[in-house]
């Protein structure tokens, strides 16, 4: 399948490109018309071929690729460098007008790509700009518009950026808001993951967000007794299973996973939604399920 040689960089380039960063597209160099008649060796290099990669014909992107570790593309996005940082000294006859990812890469990747490798599921290839051809208004869907992880090329923030040509997203404190629902509480909240940079902070944010609501909920559920301010109990132990509630999250595949197992950075890139569930009701069966399960859980005790 195409694109297995893509790397996280393309995503970064794509994102950097999209941020605009008040960079206009620069003019191609004008001037004397070079004689770029059919230079066969170049053109051959650029040709799409069916077959395994030819080895030494390839561009320096190969070593380039080795330099870039296989970080998730989203992490590359977060670091958001420009194209120019990333591109190594390319050979002079590179034709960047070929199947590029992020408009920067050579046909090396493409030639490889032409030997489709469909049988196995690869690790996510770095995205090609504008492919699949989906408009931005649809791209927000799978992240239900809260998480900014899948690069929505024209999210509202980016629009303002591109119009005013101002600061890129990564340098500001633009929050990463994820929806969070607590079982038994009808009102959902949103938590800014950028503001928490560790699980501990997240746990205390959960406490802050829901302590009052939970108390209010308990109050109303106690058959209208007009008691004074119900004592607000802090919500604790959501990460280690010791508390009354446990924090789980849903990832980009719809699976439900206990929070805390993966490194924080990785968690932030895959989390789509958070839930605070009663520890007693949690069982292995409820976790790691597919969308069907998720749905049946939703129609259960948890509120909408």
């Amino acid at each position, binding site marked *: *399948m*195409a*694109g297995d040689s893509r790397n996280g960089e393309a995503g970064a380039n*794509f994102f950097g*490109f*999209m941020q605009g960063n008040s960079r*206009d*597209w*620069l*003019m*191609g*160099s*004008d001037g004397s*018309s*070079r*004689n*770029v*008649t059919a230079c066969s060796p170049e*053109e051959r290099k650029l*040709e*799409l071929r069916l077959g395994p990669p030819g080895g030494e014909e390839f561009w320096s992107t190969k070593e380039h690729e080795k330099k870039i570790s296989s970080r998730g593309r989203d992490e590359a996005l977060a670091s958001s460098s*420009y*194209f120019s940082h990333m591109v190594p000294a390319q050979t*002079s*006859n*590179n*034709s*960047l*007008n070929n*199947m*590029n990812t992020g*408009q*920067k890469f050579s046909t090396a990747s493409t030639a490889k790509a032409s030997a*489709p490798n*469909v049988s196995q*599921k690869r690790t*996510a*290839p770095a995205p*090609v*700009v*504008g*492919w*699949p051809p*989906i*408009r931005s208004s649809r791209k927000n*869907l*799978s992240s*239900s*518009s809260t998480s900014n992880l899948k690069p929505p090329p024209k999210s*509202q923030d980016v*629009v*303002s950026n*591109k*119009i005013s040509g101002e600061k890129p997203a990564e340098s500001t404190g633009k929050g990463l808001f994820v*929806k969070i629902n607590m079982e038994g509480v009808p*009102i959902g909240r*949103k938590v800014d993951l950028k503001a928490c940079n560790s699980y501990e902070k997240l746990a205390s944010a959960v406490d802050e967000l829901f302590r009052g609501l939970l108390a209010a909920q308990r109050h109303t559920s106690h058959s209208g007794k007009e008691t004074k301010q119900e004592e607000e109990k802090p919500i604790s132990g959501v990460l280690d299973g010791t508390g009354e509630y446990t924090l789980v999250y849903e990832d980009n*595949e719809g699976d439900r996973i206990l929070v805390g197992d993966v490194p924080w950075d990785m968690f932030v890139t895959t989390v789509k939604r958070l839930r605070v569930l009663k520890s007693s009701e949690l069982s292995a069966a409820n976790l790691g399920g597919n969308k069907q399960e998720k*749905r049946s859980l939703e*129609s259960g005790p948890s509120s909408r």
Partner: protein
Amino acid sequence: MSEDDEPGRPQPPDPGSKKTRNCAAVHPSPHPDRVLEIVLEHVLQFLTARRDRNAASLVCKSWYRTEALTRSHVFIGNCYSVSPSRVTARFPRVRSVAIKGRPRFADFNLMPLNWGAHFGPWVATMGKAYPWLERVYLKRMSLTDRDLCLLGDSFVGFKELELVCCDGFGTGGLAAIASKCSQLRVLDLSDTEVMNDGVDWISCFPEGETCLESLIFDYVECPINFEALESLVARSPALKKLRLNREVSLGQLYRLMVRAPQLTHLGTGAFGPSEAQGASDQEYDYASAFSACKSLVCLSGFREIVPEYLPAIYPVCANLVSLNLSHANINVEQLKPIICQCRKLQVLWVLDSVCDEGLKAVAAACPDLRELRVFPFDPQEDAEGPVSEVGLQAISEGCPKLESILYFCQRMTNAAVIAMSKNCPDLVVFRLCIMGRHQPDYVTREPMDEGFGAIVMNCKKLTRLATSGLMTDRAFAYIGKYGKLVRTLSVAFAGDSDTGLKYVLEGCHNLQKLEIRDSPFGDAALLSGLHHYYNMRFLWMSSCHLSRQGCREVARALPRLVVELLSYEGNEKMDDGAVDVLYMYRSLDGPRNDTSESVTIL
């Protein structure tokens, strides 16, 4: 609801309208030549199709003049093909204008920001020339708040503003329209980005009854003042089309629906309860609100759907002609009870979350289906593919009247595509997007040539084709040979050599819009189309094998063609003449002068 439809043509003007010159009233006995012209004017008023009008204008000078005087709707397919002043000079009595700007690939970030397509020059010129302008339709153009203010100020009787895939303005601009255009009937902001300047534009509509018939802001990502909206809906008795953005919760939708049971088109907004408020929304009887809307034929929205509420729409399903669930992540079990009631459905947009099984249910329930769009929930190349050739086959068998299909999938077979070409002979639009690049037939491992070949061969009415998957030059040979009516062709990651593009340019005589990306077509292929480029609206080629030299040759050979080269950032040092993006189009007024640095015009 179609994203790429030509704008609807307005009705023929009222014969009693003042704009028809009636010389007879001034000169009792007109010159004999003038008699013919007067008769012609009266007759031509009824000619609305622009192709017919164009043909009429070519008959002779007299017809040209008369046609120009009676043309009330002008369509400009490429805003740079002609200058605003040339348009206003030729057509002095225009009431309605449609202008298209950027090419479609701009939607997918293949074009530099600030490339162009500004509405400013148009509104400035038309503001002076067309004081009676009533309708503006723009697609993929950039407007500023100032442009909108000027529009509101210039056109006293302004009635309809339709902005599709536009950008550049904010809520301030909308406020200007709302407050200045007292006759406004239609405000349609489909797919248009509006910056949130914090202005409460909904409150800017005039007090008292409005003429509003259509208020569409489903993709405007700004919160709105709901009370103002409710009041607006309540005082707009003519309102038929209302499409809300996702900030509007289910409870709020209810309140609006009970005030507007006359709606025919509804975009439901979030279709879920709001999270912001304190107490949870009152549990309204949503089903009763829907059953009160007896005229509802088009339903969309469901932006943040809570599927448990879906049964509320059952009362309207039987009458639905168009249903857009493409933002609703629902599965087949949730789709089935709805779709099996939608016997009259002609247009359906869904997410692939409904899976092949869901598409089978559609095929079984909707024999009248004309248009189907299946969007990917997870638009990545290697995601799980819930729909496949199975769904396509089922649809082809159950929906023989299908005219338009857009289908995103991860795997496909030639057999299914061939089956569709035979089962659905009325296909006009066939757009298949196999999301993995260069993917062959899933079963046979062959290229997708035969499938697309069958489509162009068997679907004799086909005018629009978008290809994907592994394709060799052979596929293009088929397209060139059989795709005689094809006007729009989209190609990505396909073909082997120049020959592929040559087949298309030499064979597709009706080709108007050709957009190609990441395919190995070079200068030789480009030059093989010289005979045809003046007949086209545009040619887009990005990340192909073009060189400056080749493009320059085209520019020299065809002086009326504007040949734009766009550079991706960072390539300015690359002096080898390679071309990132070629975008070229015919123009009567030569190259534009509003380009940014990334654009070179040869």
